[in-house]
């Protein structure tokens, strides 16, 4: 009885209602984008964008302070959106140029983002402490207008991420083939980058910029353990994302702990649990034992040729001169 009344109290609390809707949306959309990032081996892109978004937060704060906007952080989220999108597109264009220099450019962007954010927030009259709610999330302070922005941005993310699924899969799976098929590779790459940037800013409130990437990547890592198709991976990852977000957030209703950290720890515990249980259902699926060595002939002639593995004509072969 007490459990039901407690649950009812949680679900009727308007603050908690807004927080749950935000967590639900983030839980669905972050793994959808994360699936593409993992596929293109850009698992850390979310982190990079998060760092840049921090500068955007501070910049929004600075502009807001200069314009005398009433809550001095009213422009922080729009600032983060703009900075994250610009940063993501910049990373994508750098990546297109070449891998080694791209790695270095990413690092520069990471550190530039954090340092820029701390520096600008000081100029805006705040302290580095003001950035804490963005770094680690502040879902309990989600306002109605925040929620509207979250709904709109999540809708864009899901529309692009699911609607263009086949094309984004092709580009992420084999970029060269996509180019040779006549797909607009650069536009699709930029679409992934922009959608990742939007996801970062949407998730900022829920888990914070430092843990955004975990919400995009860990559910995908869980799903990968269980599936063999791309589509299933995306579906399972989203389910895992929603479950850990909603459960993690609900837990913090009764216990005074950080929602973002709880959600991420829950996701990682899920990963460990699934990884530990995996052998249980994997052995039911018979795996074909196969020789990993390619079946091609070599250049040596032996008296004991293993049957069936050599298609070499014997005698008169001067190849081994």
């Amino acid at each position, binding site marked *: 009885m007490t459990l039901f009344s407690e649950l009812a109290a949680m679900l009727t609390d308007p603050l908690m209602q807004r927080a749950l809707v935000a967590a639900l949306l983030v839980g669905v959309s972050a793994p959808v984008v994360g699936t593409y990032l993992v596929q293109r081996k850009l698992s850390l892109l979310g982190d990079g964008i998060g760092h840049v978004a921090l500068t955007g937060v501070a910049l929004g704060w600075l502009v807001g302070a200069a314009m005398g906007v009433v809550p001095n952080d009213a422009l922080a989220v729009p600032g983060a959106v703009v900075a994250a999108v610009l940063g993501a597109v910049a990373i994508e264009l750098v990546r297109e140029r070449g891998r080694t220099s791209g790695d270095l450019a990413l690092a520069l962007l990471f550190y530039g983002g954090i340092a820029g954010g701390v520096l600008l927030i000081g100029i805006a009259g705040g302290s580095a402490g003001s950035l804490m709610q963005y770094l680690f999330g502040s879902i309990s302070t989600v306002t109605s207008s925040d929620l509207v922005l979250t709904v709109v941005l999540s809708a864009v993310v899901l529309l692009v991420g699911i*609607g*263009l699924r086949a094309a984004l*899969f*092709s580009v992420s799976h084999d970029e060269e083939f996509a180019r040779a098929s006549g797909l607009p590779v650069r536009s699709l790459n930029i679409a992934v980058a922009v959608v990742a940037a939007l996801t970062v800013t949407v998730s900022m409130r829920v888990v914070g910029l430092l843990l955004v990437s975990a919400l995009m990547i860990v559910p995908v890592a869980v799903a*990968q353990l269980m599936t*063999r198709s791309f589509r299933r991976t995306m579906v399972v990852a989203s389910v895992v994302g929603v479950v850990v977000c909603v459960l993690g957030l609900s837990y913090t209703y009764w216990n005074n702990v950080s929602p973002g950290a709880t959600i991420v720890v829950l996701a990682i515990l899920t990963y460990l649990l699934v990884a530990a249980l995996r052998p249980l259902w994997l052995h039911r699926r018979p795996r074909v034992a196969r020789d990993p060595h390619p079946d091609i002939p070599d250049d040596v002639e032996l008296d004991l040729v293993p049957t069936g593995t050599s298609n*070499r004509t014997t005698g008169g072969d001067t190849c081994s001169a």
Partner: protein
Amino acid sequence: MTTTAPELVAAHGLHVTLGGSEILRGIDLSVRAGEVVALLGANGSGKSTLVRALVGIVPLSQGSVELFDAPLGPRVPWQRLGYVPQRVAAPSGMPSTASEVVASGLLGGGRLRLPRGWRERTADALDLVGLADRADDSTAELSGGQQQRVLIARALVRRPDLLVLDEPVAGVDKQSQETFAETMTRLVDDGLTVLVVLHELGALSPLIGRAVVLRHGRVVHDGAPPRASSTHAGATHQHLHPHEPDDGDGPVTGPSTGLSDTLYRGLAAGHTPRNAS
């Protein structure tokens, strides 16, 4: 081959520079409808780079490429071209089934979403390469040769008029090679035009009407396919190691065709054993 057939591939004065070194130095190449052209050459002669430049993966530093009479770019009817890359050894970061990979071959040329009936077309293409029963298996669970066949199905699913293949049989098991040769024979009989990069003619030699040989980024032969030397005869022989002794300027003793000097001289010096790649 009739010279009146339309030119599907036309490259003029093609130069490609990658990482500061000039890989292709003025290539002229034409492939007409109905032809089966082999692109031969040693490792590092630029044959892979050439096909990658022809399909728009590698940027040209000079010269021009026209596919189906349209300059390389969005105006090319991409749906008429099927490209099979050299198999990538490293698996992608995500699980994906054979049919998902093949379905991505239906996109491009203005199409961003899968067309109606993509399941049937994907199944047909997998059937064509003998993998109908593996459609829902993860590509990571397939053998190297089967993965290569998935890539061929991905190029065939769009029903191309021109198929460009980059070393489709390198490092592929014998059974897959034979299945591949059978499939190609059927498709060529149906009028498919083929440009194929090969290390040796091998099982495909009955199909090939013309061979272009590259050396050091230039075309050194364009015409009848060179016959393999007597010691390397046999359709199934894998020519992995051309071990002709290099006698400086002396005659090359290995291959006994008139083309031997353009093909093999200088190869023995400094060539590395060819692995499955």
